[in-house]
């Protein structure tokens, strides 16, 4: 029989499973045994199957035996504790339903005080979850006292955990208890340790949402103001996040007096981290405070952020340019953009920091839909063109990847003259990731610029990538060709790319010869039976005599790949003899792939 021993006291707690010699419980006995195995991995496996154990034990024994045992194992490795914290969140039915859900509180309470943040956070998550399953009475009798104990714990970990629990119990308790909860939250907002103040600040918005409006005005605002002027910038910046929720809750007429002084102060905080946060949350803030305040306050604040002395802040603000402009009140949107925002944007185009320019380049094209055709041509186009010539490849790439926005407004032709040198330069960039990125936009560009422009200017590039020295580029180039053929059709393929691809079959470099095969794999389907049979197949078959084994086994693979496109008779008369010959090759890999092809699923039965 198996017994559970705890680390604290080794007295036999109970004979939990297998005690009656009941074989059906044997697997459970093993799981329980593994809960105290020396090997962490086994303990972990067992904890992950905790619900199975509980189910087998039944609700009563789970409550009276398993849970006390688990509460005692809280001194385990963090990994095990994390799994335990997660499991307990789903245990309500296993302890007998909502009536008994409070049994889960003691182990979760201990878990909510451990040092390791992930464990603690998971315990809080589970506590939040099961709080919903408590009846209002149980919430006051069992849950709320737990929150209070955590909130007045000695070590900062329990107090940080408490911060996340106020908002889930507040709405469902009596007004006396509510007052206590508010008091506890207030205390934690001015806690001695910045860790707790940060936790409180990060839950301020969430807590505000469940409070009655009067208390939002009386309690939350003063806490918000205090946290927003905390001595540590890590606390102040969290107040900015809360600002969004609080502003959403308050009626418009109160915003000016209750929220705006703090927000203005945050936008000009001496710490760049706080200003960064304001920039990062700008769209949310804008929506929360409404159009009037946006016009009077946020527009100048946004201008300042775009001109901030720290590049991080400018980049965060630049990221928001499009969203900010989009959400401006429509009646004088154009005027605000043209007189206030655009001048700043113009300066950012020649910013000294590449991250700022690149952030701007990722959104600037979006302005064209907002400003319309004429403004785009007159004011934005020069900026696009300047960014297309930027020294940093990421900036150029960001412009090119957003071309579709402009295309809708003014058509891409306006840009083509500048586009081309930019594309050519990116296509030859020393970083293969940049080359890879531009290849991915080729099909889009080809579609927008049209077949003539493409043949004339871009075709050469697409072919050059096929012999790039990085495999990832050659592979992407192959795939690119397939997409181009999908766009321009098989006739175009036959005249422009197929001859070039097949020409590479005679290249002295075996990697290039293999590229021919890879291209054929990709193209046979879109080019259709005719081209495949008449032009591609002969080349593939001839390559079966290549002196490099890698080429020969790729011939076998290619034949398997293009098989479904070919006619049965072709397979029988031309393909099979070649595969048969390859199947007797002296190289074992060639033999292997030839056999694979001969027995391949996609080949007709005549093959085998």
């Amino acid at each position, binding site marked *: 029989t198996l017994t559970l021993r705890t680390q604290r006291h080794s007295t036999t707690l109970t004979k939990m499973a297998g005690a009656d010699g009941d074989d059906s419980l044997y697997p459970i006995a093993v799981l329980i045994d593994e809960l105290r195995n020396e090997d962490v991995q086994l303990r972990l496996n067992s904890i992950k199957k905790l619900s199975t154990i509980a189910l087998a034990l039944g609700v009563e024994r789970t409550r009276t035996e398993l849970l006390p045992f688990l509460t005692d194992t809280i001194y385990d490795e963090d990994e095990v504790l994390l799994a335990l914290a997660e499991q307990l969140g789903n245990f309500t039915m296993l302890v007998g339903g909502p009536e008994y859900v409070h049994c889960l509180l003691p182990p979760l309470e201990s878990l909510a005080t451990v040092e390791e943040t992930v464990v603690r956070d998971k315990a809080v998550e589970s506590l939040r979850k099961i709080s919903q399953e408590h009846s209002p009475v149980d919430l006051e009798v069992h849950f709320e006292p737990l929150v209070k104990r955590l909130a007045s714990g000695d070590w900062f970990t329990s107090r940080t955990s408490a911060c996340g629990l106020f908002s889930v119990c507040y709405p469902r308790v009596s007004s006396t208890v509510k007052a206590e909860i508010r008091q506890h939250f207030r205390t934690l907002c001015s806690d001695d340790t910045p860790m707790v103040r940060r936790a409180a600040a990060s839950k301020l918005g969430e807590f505000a949402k469940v409070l009655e409006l009067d208390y939002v005005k009386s309690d939350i605002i003063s806490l918000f103001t205090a946290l927003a002027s905390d001595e540590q910038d890590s606390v102040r910046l969290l107040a900015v996040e809360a600002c969004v929720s609080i502003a959403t809750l308050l009626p418009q007429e109160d915003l000016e007096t209750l929220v705006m002084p703090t927000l203005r102060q945050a936008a000009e905080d001496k710490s760049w981290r706080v200003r960064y946060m304001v920039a990062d949350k700008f769209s949310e803030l804008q929506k929360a405070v409404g159009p009037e305040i946006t016009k009077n306050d946020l527009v100048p604040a946004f201008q*300042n952020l775009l001109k901030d002395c720290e590049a991080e802040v400018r980049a965060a603000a630049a990221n928001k340019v499009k969203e900010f402009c989009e959400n401006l009140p429509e009646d004088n949107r154009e005027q605000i953009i043209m007189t206030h925002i655009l001048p700043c944007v113009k300066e950012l185009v020649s910013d000294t920091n590449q991250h700022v320019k690149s952030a701007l380049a990722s959104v600037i094209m979006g302005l064209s839909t907002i400003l319309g055709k004429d403004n785009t041509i007159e004011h934005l186009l020069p900026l696009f063109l300047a960014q297309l010539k930027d020294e940093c490849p990421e900036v150029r790439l960001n412009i090119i990847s957003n071309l579709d926005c402009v295309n809708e407004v003014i058509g891409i032709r306006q840009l083509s003259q500048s586009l081309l040198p930019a594309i050519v330069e990116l296509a030859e960039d020393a970083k293969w990731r940049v080359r890879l990125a531009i290849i991915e936009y080729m099909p889009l560009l080809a579609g927008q610029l049209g077949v003539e422009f493409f043949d004339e200017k871009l075709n050469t590039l697409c072919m050059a990538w096929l012999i790039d020295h990085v495999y990832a580029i050659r592979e992407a180039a192959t795939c690119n060709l397939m997409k181009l053929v999908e766009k321009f059709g098989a006739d175009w393929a036959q005249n422009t790319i197929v001859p070039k691809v097949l020409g590479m079959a005679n290249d002295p470099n075996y990697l290039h010869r293999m590229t021919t095969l890879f291209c054929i794999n990709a193209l046979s389907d879109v080019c259709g039976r005719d081209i495949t049979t008449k032009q591609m197949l002969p080349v593939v078959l001839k390559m079966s005599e290549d002196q490099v084994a890698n080429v020969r086994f790729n011939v076998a693979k290619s034949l398997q790949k293009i098989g479904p496109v070919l006619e049965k008779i072709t397979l029988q008369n031309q393909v099979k003899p070649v595969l048969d010959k390859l199947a007797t090759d002296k190289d074992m890999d060639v033999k292997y792939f030839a056999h694979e092809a001969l027995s391949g699923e996609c080949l007709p039965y005549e093959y085998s």
Partner: protein
Amino acid sequence: MAAKDGSKMSAAAIAAEKVDGFTRKSVRKAQQRQRRSLSSSQGSSQFRTHGAVPVDLSLSPLPQLMPECVNQQELFTQKLQQCCVLFDFFDSVTDLKSKEVKRATLNELVDYVSTNRGVLVEAAYPDITNMIITNIFRTLPPSDNPDFDPEEDEPTLEASWPHMQLVYEFLLRFLENPDFQPSIAKRYIDQRFVLQLLELFDTEDPRERDFLKTILHRIYGKFLGLRAFIRKQINNIFLRFIYESEHFNGVAELLEILGSIINGFALPLKAEHKQFLMKVLLPLHTAKALVLFHAQLAYCIVQFLEKDPTLTEPVIRGLLKFWPKTCSQKEVMFLGEMEEILDVIEPTQFKKIQEPLFKQISKCVTNPHFQVAERALYLWNNEYILSLIEENIDKILPLMFGSLYRISKEHWNPTIVALVYNVLKTLMEMNGSLFDDLTASYKNDRQRCGTPSRLNNPYPHTLSS
């Protein structure tokens, strides 16, 4: 088969990016650095006051300070106020003359407070601290290099260092002046001052951290009322570093200060100090960047154990709990720290932890990473540890024997095999009969399991002869 490169890349580009497309991290980073414009790797947020209106920054030199003359106090104040003007050091062209005036003035002020007696009158304190606060307290700029690797990358240096260095020098001389009176200074050098000073420890500039270290140490020494506060704030910095941000440049410096503070703790140790050891110093071992401050951290731990040997057991159990699972470099550091601890351990304490400890060491000697195995085996070179092992050989030999015996046959690295032989020999000499028993039962076990199983061999690629 080498693939011939047929691409049309320029020779330079190929050189920069090797055929496999991957460049070494250091090369890549050097290129990034070059590309981060030519502004050099200097940063500062000092002078860029938000929404600053252009002001006249020109300074004109004041007469020389002469301690014996009248009105020197007034001139001293004027000079201090003059030094509150901040300059843009990114712009190397403007204000050259005024920058030079400030530099000369600061130099003069440093001399003035370090060589003269009687110059620190009470009225000067506010101006002195104000000048210091204006010049050094600032929000540190964002790092130029978001994935700054202190081991490999050059730190971003403070651009305004030519002035800032002198201000730090001045602060130090001010604190060290024989006339310095903490009772007056505490009105200015208060909790807020200390908090801002501590935040500066995050600077990437090692020169600045070095000054900060000495200055904080002086403040800790002279201001008794601030000691508890300083310790608490350092706690908070460390806890944030461990559990929230994993980023703080000044951990090593702060630990160095703590090392000397711990030395002075009174016995019996206060609960606060023990909590600091168990809940802050031990978890610091989990940090990814442990290598940057491990020496200082181990020193602090050993200081604690020398103060109060009864802490040995919880400390060693704590280290075993945080023992690195995948990082060999850290494992070597842990073994080093363990040796430092064993060097000062009391035999009674040793008995309490020998079992879990030697289970871990036994795992370490079988580590396929030869540096870990080697570091663990080096413990046997330590005379004191050897004497502890000898005293407890009945307990330790059974824990170690299986691993050592197996490794002596199976480790891929010849140095390790040679070391293991020596260790086995030493152990055999300590208790020959136990050694023979263990050998016999080990061989028995293996025979019962049939031929040496491949499953037991941690190095399946080793060819056994």
